[in-house]
């Protein structure tokens, strides 16, 4: 009898908690879509906010988000892949490997508000970049570096040792071997790493709010003006509308877009990772 009670209780807990988790997710998505979908229109996506006409538009925020994603990835990708190559292909010094791996884990664990602080003193103040998208992107490089290192490293580890031995046996130099044999076989991990990193940039708000600015106006990305471009990304725009303007319609519409981006990035990381591996 007691065992039956135990079984019943345990089963109830398992089903109950799982239902709660799923229900929560369903509610979150449903609620965001219901309040946000209605506000999304062509002009919402392609214009900037106009106080005169009283319209809301997030084109600048979309462009700023893209800018930060592209710039921070362009900088972090070579660094991260290079670090992973060092760790898996070259490293002899065990202490150095331990130090780099520890550092990478530490970077992954540091909260974003600390990155915001460091970005503010390092890039905005010390390097005199002010609050610009450039300063924000540079701060994000530190944040996404561990993501790229880790996923490149994981996938380099799965490249069979025989590939390397084969290439070296045929007389290839080490760098040539890495470039033509190892990296192409590890491209799935690198791409997945980039997508995960892009997801992190899209979802980040604290860092960008304090290092990249909160302007909702259209920014000029021409080379001469680039260093002055300063504005909000999607997440910061959401915060701006919710907390400072109390315009929850616009905030939920941005949340809907962020949700869609998250789904797309999640799916493509899974699909691309698998597909590239097979080919």
């Amino acid at each position, binding site marked *: 009898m007691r*065992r039956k009670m*135990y*079984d019943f209780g*345990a089963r109830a807990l*398992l089903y109950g*908690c*799982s239902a*709660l*988790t*799923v229900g*929560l*997710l369903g509610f*979150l998505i449903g*609620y*965001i879509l219901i309040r946000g979908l209605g506000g999304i229109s062509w002009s919402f996506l392609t214009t900037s906010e106009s106080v005169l006409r009283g319209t809301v538009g997030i084109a600048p925020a979309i462009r700023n988000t893209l800018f930060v994603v592209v710039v921070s990835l362009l900088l972090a990708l*070579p*660094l991260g892949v*290079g*670090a992973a*190559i*060092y760790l898996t292909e*070259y490293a002899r010094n065990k202490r*150095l490997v331990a130090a*780099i791996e520890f*550092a*990478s*884990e*530490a970077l992954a*664990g*540091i*909260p974003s*508000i*600390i990155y*915001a*602080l*460091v970005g*503010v*003193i*390092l890039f905005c103040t010390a390097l005199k970049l002010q609050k610009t998208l450039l300063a924000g992107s540079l701060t994000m490089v*530190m944040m996404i*570096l*561990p993501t790229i290192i880790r996923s490149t490293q994981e996938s380099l580890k799965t490249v069979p040792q025989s590939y390397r031995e084969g290439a070296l046996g045929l007389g290839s130099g*080490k760098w040539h071997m890495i470039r033509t044999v190892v990296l192409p076989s590890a491209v799935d991990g690198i791409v997945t790493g980039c997508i995960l990193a892009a*997801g992190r940039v899209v*979802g*980040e*708000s604290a860092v960008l709010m*304090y290092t990249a600015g909160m302007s909702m106006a259209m920014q000029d990305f021409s080379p001469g003006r680039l260093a002055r471009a300063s504005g909000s990304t999607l*997440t910061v725009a*959401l*915060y701006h509308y*919710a*907390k400072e303007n109390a315009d929850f319609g616009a*905030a*939920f519409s941005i949340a809907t877009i*962020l949700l869609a981006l*998250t*789904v797309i*990035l*999640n799916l493509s990381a899974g699909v691309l990772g698998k597909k590239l591996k097979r080919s």
Partner: protein
Amino acid sequence: MQVLFTLCGLMAVGFVLLISVYLIISGLPAMREIGLGRFLFGKTWAAGQNQYGILPLILTSIYGTAGAVVIGVPIGFFTAVFLSKVAPKWLANVIRPAVSLLAGIPSVVYGLVGMCVLVPALRNWLNLPAGDSLLAAIIVLAVMILPNIISLSETALEAVPREYEEASLALGATKLETYFRVSAPAAKSGIAAAVVLGIGRAVGEAMAIMMVAGNVANMPALTKSVRFLTTGISIELNYSRDGSLQRQALFSIGLVLFLFIMLINAFLNLVLKREKEG
């Protein structure tokens, strides 16, 4: 080429050093000026009156994280057991991506839903003057750490050798007894790692709780408006003057938060190491 790649690897170390050194250099002056004791144990934070005591912030961060763990960990653990042991395959394959979606949702989105749903609901249910409270922050944090707890615990549970479970079943234990009395204890260090990681995420979260916690530096109480270590920084970072004592004190909070996180990370490494050694 080797030199180049070594340099890339050293960048990660360089970044960590840079962050630590900058935080220490810019965090120490205010601590010295205010006095370490008065800074850490002072009960009032009021920049206008030159009072910089962060005890309420520290306690709020501790209580808030503890609350989130108390709510989030059991729910996450049971969901993980369900996913890895009980759920039919098709169902697990539906829930799993959903959980990883939950992990990818930006924190401002959690904050927004918290602001529009949770805060008014708490105000009505508990008859509060305002729903922005420690309780609201705890619930938001619990939801946010849930996916981490679920996916890591599930990985740990999957790694339990089948023979353990088969032996237990053969000895006459029911399936559920096996899951809780054999599988879960065997996966305990992995689950512990999941909990520690969840703690790290909860301690470090800023934006979501900035939107629901009210941000007044009260001593923590469930229904009061509170300020965390993270929000203590974020709420004043845009409004403090460069070089002022207030700005410097924010960096001191950053240093304290950084030490907290490093302690948690060290603990996490310890747990993971023990797991590796069995």
